[in-house]
């Protein structure tokens, strides 16, 4: 199997930006080294011909159709909901300016 090209600092910066984890320049180097070392550890996966193998997304398979009845269950009070959100405003959770974030909707 051909190897994937090693990640560059630019790749890692894009990844960190996507995953919302700010990295300093030094951390960027360390992270690139780590990711390339970790990727090399995964090589055994690439050595298989898996064309006829079904994936197992859920271990201890065979269980399907697990659902619950449409019945209301008491949830959290407003105080409990907001208890850990230090920046709440009145009845709301609060975030600073979003524009430029580019969410999916």
């Amino acid at each position: 199997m051909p190897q994937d090209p090693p990640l560059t600092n630019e790749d890692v910066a894009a990844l960190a930006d996507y995953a919302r984890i700010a990295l300093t320049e030094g951390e960027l180097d360390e992270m690139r080294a780590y990711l390339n070392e970790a990727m090399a550890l995964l090589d055994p996966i690439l050595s298989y011909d898996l064309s006829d193998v079904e994936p197992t997304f859920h271990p201890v398979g065979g269980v399907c159709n697990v659902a619950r009845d449409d019945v209301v269950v008491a949830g959290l009070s407003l105080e409990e909901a907001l208890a850990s959100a230090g920046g709440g405003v009145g009845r709301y959770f609060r975030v600073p300016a979003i524009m430029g974030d580019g969410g999916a909707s």
Partner: protein
Amino acid sequence: MRALREVLRDWEAVIGLEIHTELTSLETKMFCGCRISHDDEPNTNVCPVCLGLPGALPVPNEKAIEYIVMAGLATNCDVMKRSMFYRKHYFYPDMAKNFQTTQGPVAFVMHGHLDLEVSGEGADERPDGTITKAADGSYVLPVKILRIHMEEDAAKMVHVGGAEGRIGGARESLIDYNRCGTPLIELVTEPDLRTPEEARLFMEKLRQVFLALGISDCSLERGSMRCDGNVSLRRRGSSEMGTKTEMKNINSFKALHDALAYEICRQAEVLEGGGRVLQETRHWEPSRRKTVVMRVKERNDDYRFFPDPDLMPFDLSDEFVERCRRRLPELPDARRDRYVATWGLRCREAELLAADPQAASLFEDVMGVAEPAEAQVVANVMVNLVPSYGSLGVGQIAGIARLLAADDITFVQAREVLDALDGTDDDPEEVVEALGMRQSADSLSLVVDEVLGRCEDQVRQYRSGNRKVVGYLVGQCMKASAGAGNPKLFNQLLLERLEG
């Protein structure tokens, strides 16, 4: 910009829709037992699951799955084997987990279709020759449905510190997670639609089907039904696909039509000017009657989809699907056809009644006491008069129809009677008596004599062979009686006198 019909003679518009419908008829959210509500105080219908607290796990609402299967069966979809939930990742605070639970390549239901009947002025948007039209210009368009999948709705956000509550320029945003996790079904059509009118009709028809199923209030104003439309243009005769733009969160039928019409004309202008349509998301601004760019999609977003390990796969049994099938009510098209076949209704009234489950149910109750021969009159009353009134009983509607059918009152008088009846238990017959409305030869004779007295010219014309002038005289009688007289009776009395 050129007019739509002109543009559509040169260009073919390829339109696909994605329609999101909240399953508001359910008691609880998709993956937790929190109540579904549009009106409660912010952040009061929340729990560890829909707030995405550490350690919380989702468990699907079985009835939501019944509902999506019903929606699929009603739109001729296949119920799929081995359907799974997937996680779709994007960092945005309206999703408490920073991923949305949705479905992967295999949705619960897929590969359906809905037939659209397009008639009247709307049919004119489609140039002749691109589809076989009937003598009256109407045509039937089968619209393929790619899939309907299940997902969870996002939280509501309020943007403050900017203009008009818009996100651009806002200083901060406030989040209410009550809506977060509300079951949402997303229907995706194949790009089979070719005119804004077809798109509008598709959404209207889908709404009628979902209303009949009773799975949602389908309120566009409240956002329980929302539509994204995408459109691209290609030269007539070409089979290549153009670059499409997407319009998000359209919240009325008119806006859907107008936004697509605007976008088609805009794209045509760009292309005719030698320009290139950019793949972008646009937003319809009704006040400015135009679409504006929300953002340009340089490349497709990478949502890092993978099957949700917390949710088991679904392999719905034949029994489950049959149970859903048995729960399907009569759908609007079938109901309309039955009204035409059973009571000989005209198509227009049959369709209008059949489209609205409450109206249909009331109509059928009224027909339980009314004479079958009066069905069309009952339908006329239901379509034209009843919607303006708050509470009319089955017997009252039947009574009004009977009076109208017997020519005892006119349509104009019927409104007065309904005004008097609304909110009471009174009998229409008695109200008509009380208001002194019942048409009698004596009272009408006075009007006829008065009209004949001042229309000597027309009387002469009649007697010299111009029979058509009677219509004018009837009109004069109607005018003289302020619309309260029965035109048939006037006609009869006039003829008696003119011939006598």
